[in-house]
């Protein structure tokens, strides 16, 4: 089948990315202003977006599980499970708080950081390089921080 070919597969993921970039832009989720507005509870806009996305996301996820949906390659879809971390899920709270701080400062979460490079906001490449350094530092201390 043509849609299972290696070439189509790469084109497909590229187009999903293009769609993601367009949607992040049109939703204004890439806007530093919108992020500050959200954290100051000055508009429903971002909450409406996240709420609708989770609502429909939950519906799609439920339907795929309920009907044991198979993907194009014939495998049953298994939505990703997040592994618990200790009694209080500490890594999620600590890591989430650190990321939230970075999100507020830069006004961009990881997807929008890349989308903004496409907008010509080239200073986001500084954010990307810094994020890779942050990733490397986490990797160095991975064992001590989250165990294993």
């Amino acid at each position, binding site marked *: 089948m043509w849609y299972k070919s290696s070439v189509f597969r790469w084109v497909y993921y590229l187009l999903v990315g*293009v769609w993601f970039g367009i949607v992040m832009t049109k939703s204004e989720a890439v*806007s530093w*202003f919108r992020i500050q507005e959200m*954290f100051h509870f000055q508009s*429903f806009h971002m909450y409406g977006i996240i709420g609708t996305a989770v609502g429909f996301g939950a519906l799609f996820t439920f339907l795929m599980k309920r009907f044991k949906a198979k993907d194009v390659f014939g495998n049953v879809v298994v939505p990703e499970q997040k592994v618990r971390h200790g009694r209080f899920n500490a890594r999620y709270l600590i890591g989430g708080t*650190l990321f*939230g701080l970075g999100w507020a400062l*830069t006004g961009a979460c990881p997807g929008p950081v*890349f989308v903004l490079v496409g907008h010509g906001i080239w200073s986001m490449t*500084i954010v990307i390089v810094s994020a890779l350094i942050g990733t490397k530092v986490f990797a160095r201390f991975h064992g001590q921080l989250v165990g294993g």
Partner: protein
Amino acid sequence: MQGLIDWLSQPWPWYVSGFMIALLIPLLALYEGKPFGVSRNFRHICAAILPGKDAYLRYDWKQEGLWNLTILLGAVLGGWVASVYFNPHQVQLSAGATQLIAHWGIKTGNELSPAFLLETDFLFSIKGVLVLVLGGFLIGFGTRYANGCTSGHAIAGLSNFQLPSLVAVVGFFIGGLLGSWFVLPILFKF
């Protein structure tokens, strides 16, 4: 085609945006059973260019992540297409947000991104370094620590009723409120 471009060029109501984001979940799941999650790409890039001896970065990143990195490349392209052809500069901030941001000394029009992100005076100032370098570091370090970001936890994780994702999202807001209410106002005083 022109109709599509016209539609794409108008501001989107929040429920259209939310639905379009949610569509990414079945688009990825039903093609090849893949999860929606952007920040794991930081790990893939690190594993590709500087794995060193860290066990966390020693895995087959091509097998695990080349599809996701392709999405990332597409996201840059999509950002370019949208910014050039789909007129994103009609952002209608609330009066409250406009006032708040003006109070910080930052100009707001109906632009999507603030001008200071491209001003050399800002980029070479201490606050510029704190916003971009420290902010970027926290994005990389924090999303790996939390094992996900807005896409993986707030969208995909909550959609699948994962408790760890809810905890992560609570964290996102604790950090975000600290950053937006305390850190940024102090930074923009200088």
